[in-house]
């Protein structure tokens, strides 16, 4: 996992590369990573398994975490930005 500054430069972001992984691991790993973060911090998750691009945002909303954005990339991956509630 890596850290970077967000575009605004104010909040810290964590990067989680889950390419090659499938459900339910992709959601659970994202959930456990968020558990270790402070409220307001952002987590950027990258997946290449299409169902995970839908299931992670859906499940995150169910457990009360904020889904900032979901974007399909040209390289066949999805970038999901989550914010710890």
């Amino acid at each position: 996992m890596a850290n970077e500054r967000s575009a605004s430069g104010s909040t810290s972001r964590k990067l989680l590369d889950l390419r090659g992984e499938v459900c339910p691991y992709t959601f659970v790993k994202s959930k456990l990573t968020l558990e270790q973060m402070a409220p307001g911090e952002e987590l950027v998750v990258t997946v290449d398994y299409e169902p995970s691009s839908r299931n992670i945002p859906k499940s995150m909303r169910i457990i009360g975490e904020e889904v900032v954005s979901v974007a399909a990339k040209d390289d066949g991956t999805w970038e999901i930005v989550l914010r710890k509630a």
Partner: protein
Amino acid sequence: MPLRDDQIRRYARQLVMRDFTGAAQECLLKSRVLVYGEGPPMDLCVLYLAAAGVGDIHLSGVRPSVLDLIWRAAALNPDCRVHEGGRGLRPDYVIDFAQDAGPGAARRAAGALRAGLPYLKVLRAAGAAIMKRWREGDPCPGCVLNAAGLKQTDLLNPGETSVSGPAAAAFATLELAGLGVPTHNALLMDADKGAYRELAATPLPECIMCAELADGR
């Protein structure tokens, strides 16, 4: 110690639940459960506890099939260790499958309450099972059995009612993970109908075992 990647995969099916956090799973992995009794539901309970990631399971009393059960649990989950015997053990949770609602069960319930340990009792009759997580002020196991419309003699020929095994494991798992007690009422499981009913039982003033249970605190 944070969960390893293989553990996250192994426990993913319960870690998907909102309140079942990584910390909750770590609690479970460090927990010790003492199990009394024997029979198919008890075997299933042990296997479910092992699969959920309970760290140590101690089986009280000698039974012929114990080695087989220890092997099956070990094959299911290397994180879990199943031990024969529980003398001198300080467990985090007690599950009692002994087919006894008399003084022996009342004594085990009182001992657990006095030590501040969660005590979960399962009793099986033909086509039905009762499960109850005891707390202070509760009646004795015999009076709970009575409240369910059953007698001691009904315990002599128990049906399989295997559902009581996984149900007991689920109760223990939730509490050991810090997610609370689903209910303190007795749960009556009707195996024929697949139906569950909650029973609120109160101590009987003339019952000696209820009095002894109350004195034990």
